[in-house]
């Protein structure tokens, strides 16, 4: 089964990717990308609001379950990324690859087919690698290839083993692939270097859709194993804790951001391993909140970097009086990403913890430390980047285009932070419709007919 709404927007993105690539320069490529992203966002909003009554043949146009949020969230992210993307680091090929990565992400979420998922997973790694390879001076494409092609290899191996009915080894391969892709400790090394060197648009398009966590959720739904869940939860909590500790010692803003996102991603891993309805709902809400907040946080760093160059955070060396909107947006996005009260992240993390406390009380304590340190990390970054200098440099604040993109990202977080039921009600409604699609355990007859293997559980 394929969700047609995802595929429709994915095709739109591929057309947009080609359109951006055909542009004369990066300025035109960004304009074209914004038009494509805006159309996709409008289509996604219309599908989400009115789509439930529209049927195409026997397939519902609107995807079941939480994937409804995924399509809207990804189109929101794409619009913001192309609106914000600084031209210093984003060429026309980069815009094209951002669209391709987002199309592959939509393809990944659109299908219940394991082979299609393997293809989207692998292709996205190749696209990101091509972007890194085109910036040879940055010199991390080899490291990226080692980690991400290994992840794709393990994912493929897992799929092959799975199709031959060797479920336990397959799950081992999937676990390795997910850990590598998500940067779970101790495989986090590529993650920080990728953040440090790659254009921010590519980073967001590759990292934020979180293939790994959704694969983890599908895997856990497939194999209701307590041991597997405990292993994943422990890895998640350890990642959250270690990344938070490492984050406070960073001297460079991109690396600090990488550890912040890694730590919060560890929280997601932990939540998905909760195996209770409440934990999974909390993790999904957390993903939605993190996707919006971390994207805006990362984009504001990119914007500031375009104005100042490399952003060191070893001492206070900024002044927010010339760029008050960047500063305020930075603070708001940062605190939204760590689940500060009055943001959606607070409700999401509360639900997640409530859903996991009974199963993993001691691991939850590690998360408490991680949450506290991440909050400190955000304020430290803010102070180092926006205070401490007497005479402000002639920096330009964000313009209307970026203001709109920032408002689009932050407004849902703070509105639903004050009234969390606004976000919870549709999520619950969607969640109750149908669980996330899980890969089906192979039956002997399925091996004979590959099409039937791809059906919903």
């Amino acid at each position, binding site marked *: 089964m394929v969700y047609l709404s995802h595929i429709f927007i994915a095709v739109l993105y591929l057309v947009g990717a080609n359109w951006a690539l055909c542009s004369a320069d990066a300025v035109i490529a960004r304009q074209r990308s914004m038009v494509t992203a805006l159309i996709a966002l409008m289509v996604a909003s219309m599908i989400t609001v009115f789509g439930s009554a529209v049927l195409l043949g026997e397939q519902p146009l609107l995807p079941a379950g939480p994937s409804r949020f995924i399509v809207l969230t990804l189109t929101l992210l794409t619009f913001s990324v192309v609106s914000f993307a600084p031209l210093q680091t984003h060429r026309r090929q980069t815009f094209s690859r951002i669209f391709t990565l987002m199309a592959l992400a939509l393809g990944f979420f659109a299908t219940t087919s394991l082979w299609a998922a393997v293809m989207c997973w692998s292709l996205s790694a190749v696209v990101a690698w091509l972007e890194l390879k085109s910036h040879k001076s940055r010199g991390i494409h080899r490291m990226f290839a080692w980690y991400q092609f290994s992840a794709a290899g393990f994912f493929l191996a897992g799929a092959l083993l799975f199709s031959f009915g060797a479920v336990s080894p397959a799950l081992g391969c999937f676990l390795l692939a997910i850990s590598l892709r998500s940067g779970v400790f101790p495989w986090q*090394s590529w993650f*920080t270097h990728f953040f440090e060197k790659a254009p921010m648009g590519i980073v967001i398009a590759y990292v934020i859709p979180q293939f790994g966590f959704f694969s983890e959720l599908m895997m856990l739904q497939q194999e209701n194993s307590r041991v597997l869940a405990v292993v994943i939860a422990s890895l998640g909590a350890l990642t959250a804790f270690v990344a938070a*500790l490492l984050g406070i010692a960073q001297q460079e803003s991109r690396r600090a951001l990488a550890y912040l996102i890694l730590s919060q991603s560890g929280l997601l891993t932990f939540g998905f391993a909760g195996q209770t309805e409440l934990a999974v709902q909390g993790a999904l809400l957390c993903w939605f909140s993190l996707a919006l907040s971390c994207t805006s946080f990362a984009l504001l760093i990119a914007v500031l970097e375009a104005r100042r160059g490399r952003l060191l955070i070893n001492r206070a060396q900024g002044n*927010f009086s010339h760029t008050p909107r960047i500063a305020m947006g930075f603070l708001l996005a940062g605190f939204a990403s760590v689940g500060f009260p009055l943001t959606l992240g607070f409700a999401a993390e509360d639900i997640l913890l409530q859903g996991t406390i009974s199963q993993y009380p001691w691991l939850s304590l590690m998360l408490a*430390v991680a949450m*506290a340190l991440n909050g400190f990390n955000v304020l430290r970054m803010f102070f180092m980047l926006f*205070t401490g200098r007497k005479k402000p440099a002639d920096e330009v604040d964000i313009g209307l285009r970026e203001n709109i993109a920032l408002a689009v990202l932050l407004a849902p977080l703070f509105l639903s932070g004050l009234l969390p*039921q606004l976000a919870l009600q549709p999520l619950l409604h969607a969640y109750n419709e149908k669980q996330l699609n899980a890969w089906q355990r192979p039956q002997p007859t399925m091996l004979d007919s590959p099409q039937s293997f791809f059906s919903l559980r």
Partner: protein
Amino acid sequence: MFIKSLVLVGVVAPVICAVVLGVMLWRPRQQLREELFTRIVFASFALSIICYLIALIALPFATVHMGSQVTWFDLPHYHYSLAIAPDAMSLIVAIFSAILVSMIGAFSRRYLHRDPGYFRFYLFLSLFGAGVEIIILSSSLDFLFIGWEIVGFTSAMLIAFFYERPKPVEHGLRAFLTYRICDVGLLSALVILHHSEHGTLFVNNQTTTWLALSNTDASSLVIVAGFLLVWAAMGKSAQVPLSGWLPRAMEGPTPSSAIFYGAISIHLGAFLLLRLAPLIASDWRMQISVLLIGLLTALHGSLSGRVQSDIKSVLAYASITQVGVIWMEIALGFYTLAVIHMIGHAALRSLQILRSPSLLHDHQYLESAMGATIPRAARHIENCLPYSLRPWVYRHGLERGVLDAVLRFWFLAPVLAWARWFDRMDQRWARWLNRETN
């Protein structure tokens, strides 16, 4: 229902005020009017005060279900409640806090007139007021946590108010780090209390006349949670050994120092202890711990305060000393005395801090009125000490008990050293994989 609604309006009004001011700040500075900002803050806190006063008057005539709850968000197997506690003690402290915030607002109107940070100050003041009202009137630890976080954040932002100088920023960050490390205690206690099914709601207890955490079935796990909550309170109240941030926090504007470190914020830790009072009373280890922490803090504050050379540091250590004494009162079970002490100390100290910029003027005025030099007072401790001990005590005061150095070199430095070592290894690994030569 009537009282519950009134109190809820009182709590929500400052939150809405902060949101409105935050939205207004998004506009260009030229379009903002100082007068409007001040009026909005006044209006919201005046509304809160009126609501609490009516609730306080109506309290004896109405049957109020203590711990009244309003559902904030709702899931099939879980709901988060805005649990509020309109008991007499909470209402009195809430009214007092709202009045203090309003007075500081009135004072700052002239004190910060045409200051570039005027609007920022009022935004954080209203947010702080909202956080304080939530802490005071919440009847569950879950809800209290929201206010606790807001107060910590606004405190750090106001310490770093003069952001062009590196020192205020450094001190703001230091205070925030202390808060966050102590917040781990509150968060962990929440996890443990939920896990132990003891619950986080404050209830009517025989040992207190206000709502407090129940001591029934106080298992060892709940006692551990109690210790973690004491740890959380230590950070906010600047108790030994975490008191080093408070004198440095005086880098902020005088009105914010008065409201945070003279009046309200510094007492929130003691207020949390009052909410835990039955739990503390039920376990001698907790009682002794709180008593010792209070005693050591009072001694340390008193000794260090005597050798400070600037008035704000003297007042900061005086606050630390008094809060240490309040902790001792709570440990010994003198709860009513502790509440009276808190309110009295808050009123006096905030006045002293507000007057501190005119200290030299006041001093000269007094001396000219007296026609003589003002005699040195409060030397009784010095006089009681043997002569050989005096240099040691003096040195302790001068070094501020070397507490900052101990925390920095014994606890923070090893963590940072490990993180940096890990980072170096990570870089080497990346270089090897990328085949870089250096």
